[in-house]
């Protein structure tokens, strides 16, 4: 139980400190960067920049039909584990209690067994993503230690959460402590690796959308 006390107390406090500080630092730093002014004349019928940005954010949630064949597996697999993570994180009663304690927000939870099932599917999809990364020659070449660390720190909370729920491998308090510590590790790494895409994807897609909707000719 001592480990659980450490996890619930100082470990979570430190992780939250690094997470909030790191995310704010990167977001404020990126958003305050000087913008490159596009002095070209807008193309005919160009939408307002913000609309162009929002369109790109939505449109790029699914690949263009020319690329579907090549990216079908990674697209579907990514959807599976992203949606799975969302269901697990926001659907389990224990997680809602955690969020409520932090932000005062609350909503009805999903049945524990259902969330457990989704967790298993999520874990399988994460393993599949790793296998693909390791076996795909180009993807393997592009991957560095930081990518594998991001994968590991995303997968560990899912794995330890499932073990804690099923009470496999150790006593519940040890597994719960391991789960909380794995989340702490995830939060600490989050601002510094590619996990930051959870915040930055909208801005990078939006910036591209703004530029592309402004220039050239309408396709």
């Amino acid at each position, binding site marked *: 139980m001592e480990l659980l006390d450490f996890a619930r107390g100082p470990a*979570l406090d430190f992780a939250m400190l690094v997470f909030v500080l790191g995310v704010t630092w990167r977001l404020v730093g990126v958003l305050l960067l000087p913008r490159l002014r596009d002095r070209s004349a807008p193309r005919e019928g160009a939408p307002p920049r913000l609309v162009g940005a929002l369109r790109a954010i939505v449109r790029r949630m699914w690949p263009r039909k020319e690329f579907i064949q090549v990216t079908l597996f990674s697209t579907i697999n990514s959807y599976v584990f992203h949606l799975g993570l969302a269901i697990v994180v926001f659907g389990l009663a224990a997680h809602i209690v955690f969020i409520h304690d932090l932000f005062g927000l609350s909503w009805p939870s999903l*049945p524990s067994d259902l969330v457990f099932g989704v967790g298993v599917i999520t874990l399988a999809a994460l393993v599949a993503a790793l296998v693909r990364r390791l076996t795909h020659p180009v993807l393997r070449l592009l991957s560095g230690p930081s990518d594998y660390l991001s994968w590991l720190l995303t997968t560990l909370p899912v794995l330890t959460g499932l073990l804690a729920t099923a009470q496999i491998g150790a006593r*519940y*308090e040890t597994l*719960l402590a391991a789960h909380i510590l794995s989340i702490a590790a995830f939060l600490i790494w989050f601002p510094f690796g590619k996990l930051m895409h959870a915040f930055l994807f909208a801005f990078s897609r939006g910036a591209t959308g703004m530029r592309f909707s402004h220039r050239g000719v309408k396709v």
Partner: protein
Amino acid sequence: MTDSQPLGEMLRERGVSRRAFLKYASYMASLMALPPAAAATMAQSLAQARRQSVIWLSFQECTGCTESLARSFSPSLEEMIFDLISLDYHHTLQAVSGEAAEQARRQAMRDHKGKYIVIVDGSVPTAGGGVYSAIAGQSNVAMLAETVEHAAAVIAVGTCAAFGGLPEADPNPTGAVPVSKLVMGKPLINIPGCPPMPQAMAGTLVHLLSFGKPPELDALLRPLAFFGETIHDRCYRRQFYKRGLFAKSFDDAGARKGWCLYELGCKGPVTYNACASLKWNGGVSFPIQSGHGCIGCSEPRFWDRGGLYKALPTGTGERRRVVPIAAAGGAALGVAAAALARGRLAAAASKEAK
């Protein structure tokens, strides 16, 4: 009736039938989760055993542990333990007082040297040389050291004796420590709880009497038979936990429907005790059945673990204070980083212009 008489003979003289005695042994064997054959062995061993000398030391405690055993549910099978032991020293239950009481303790220690069992309830204050609690002019620390020196085994009953309990809670002004911090080299059994379950106390004593050794213990020296499973494992409200049905306050519709109390701070998932299976007051109820979450009283430092009503998955630290400070620090760093980038860009532009 003499202490040298075998227990079986002594109980027969007192009108306890063989049938009742066997029933008692079976009850205790089943409580300890022993195999069916062990009940007969237990009955046989107990019948041949002599009354066990027990010295019960009460230190920084509230007498709840004694009350739990002595008034468990009269007449109860747990109470029968008093027929099997010779309680030679116990503040609440002994007839004598003052010097005569201390004399009785020392007499028992002399007469049963190396064979008596010491039961302790309450934590031991160590600050200021143990000045915070003394009995007959002797500090608790000194009395414990003197009494356990020739004991066969030591049993710490209640969370105060087992883990420090309430006296040890922050800021622990008396320097209270559990028995395990002071007793070395003796078989030690912890039976925590506030109070501990009478079945756990009686069952452990009967096991010691029957088999001459402690029952199987966990890492915190608690008998696995009573502390092997969590309250949550055996809770009748667990079905609601699995279905995601939780009471949000103690008087909402969920609470009235008997839904899970997890969100109201129930510590059942991390508390090892037998309350949910054996229950209290002769099997009538236990805290969760009465509508209150488990407070985790049989676990170390239960008083200092973030609050009795703080839900288990929530943090216990200072995150509400940490988050705004971190956000302000991050924003300042971000502004500084952007200013630096703008400065570099401006310098590059002016260089290009030249």
